[in-house]
């Protein structure tokens, strides 16, 4: 992608995000958020993040190429367990990376 189209993309996301942040501060008293929408928005982070994590863990070589010896899967399971137990970002990253390096080392 060219630098120009990258900047265009950044600008589009930046303006769109700003408009969403400003939305109700600007429109206060003139519009109410529909109930179904606000209920649905609660589940957006969980489903989008899971939809991002799982393919990048399962297919380390990119688009749909399943690899049998894939140390990322056990490493991600261990990291998810650490995230669940500790709720700590630093520990999740540290243990997840250490597990990946460990599994790669054992496979050598």
């Amino acid at each position, binding site marked *: *992608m060219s630098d120009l*189209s*990258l*900047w*265009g*993309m*950044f*600008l*589009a*996301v*930046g303006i*769109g*995000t*700003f408009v*969403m*942040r*400003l*939305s*109700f*501060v*600007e429109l*206060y008293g003139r519009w109410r*958020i529909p109930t179904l929408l*606000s*209920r*649905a*928005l*609660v*589940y*957006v*982070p*969980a*489903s*989008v*993040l*899971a*939809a*991002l*994590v*799982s*393919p*990048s863990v399962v297919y380390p070589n*990119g688009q*749909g190429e399943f690899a049998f010896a894939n140390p*990322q899967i056990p490493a*991600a399971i261990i*990291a*998810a367990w650490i*995230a*669940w137990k500790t709720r*700590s*970002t*630093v520990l*999740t*990253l540290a243990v*997840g*990376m250490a597990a*990946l*390096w460990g599994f*790669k080392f054992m496979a050598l």
Partner: protein
Amino acid sequence: MTYRTATEAFLNGVRTLIPLTPGVVPFGLITGVMAIEMGMSPGMSMGMTLLFYSGSAQLVALQLLQNGALPVTIVVTALIINLRFIMYSASLAPHLHHLPRRWTWPVSYLLSDQSYALCTLKFSSGELGRFAPHFYAGTAVAMWLTWQLSVFAGVYLGANIPETWSLSFAVPLSFLALLVPGIRGAASLGAAVTGGLIAVSAVSLPYNLGLVTASLGGVIAGLLIESTGKKNLSSASASHVERETP
């Protein structure tokens, strides 16, 4: 507490944010490192950080760029991730809308998960008095500085990290660290599992449509589970505030 001066309220906002910074800095570092590894210049990486000011959307955009997704897909996905700001905006609006535009526009740009989480309860209880917007601004400015500086540090580290460290795995790990603590009940768990399974099976769909399909499927699953078991509703609705990126 009620503050006597605007400065006191602002500084107390800054102090309230400081305990949250250890969770934010690693994401900033990874975002900076990833931008550089993607081949972006330092200036472009920081320009992206300033324009987005949204860590999860930025990491997602970088990941999709790496996958070679279309620009339209990247913009739409990043904006979907950021839809939560509409909710935050609605919840803080009663306490910020009376300010003049030269203030509402900057404080809206500075809205983050952290500032929202720190201010929403204090705003509605009225304990902050008339300097509540200054307290909010203190949390927001401190968060903004933390984020920009940690990405900046990552940008300068980035070039020195060898390929064999497999650091790109830190991106899905970061998403896991955001995702897992947010799961507070059957409905959000169902949303995550559905989203994850659809994404893995639909990965070969063109234009990253798999991601959009999976996200929609996850949201629908969450709503369905919520309406079959109303008991979990209160636990699920708290899930979106405690996140580690702006």
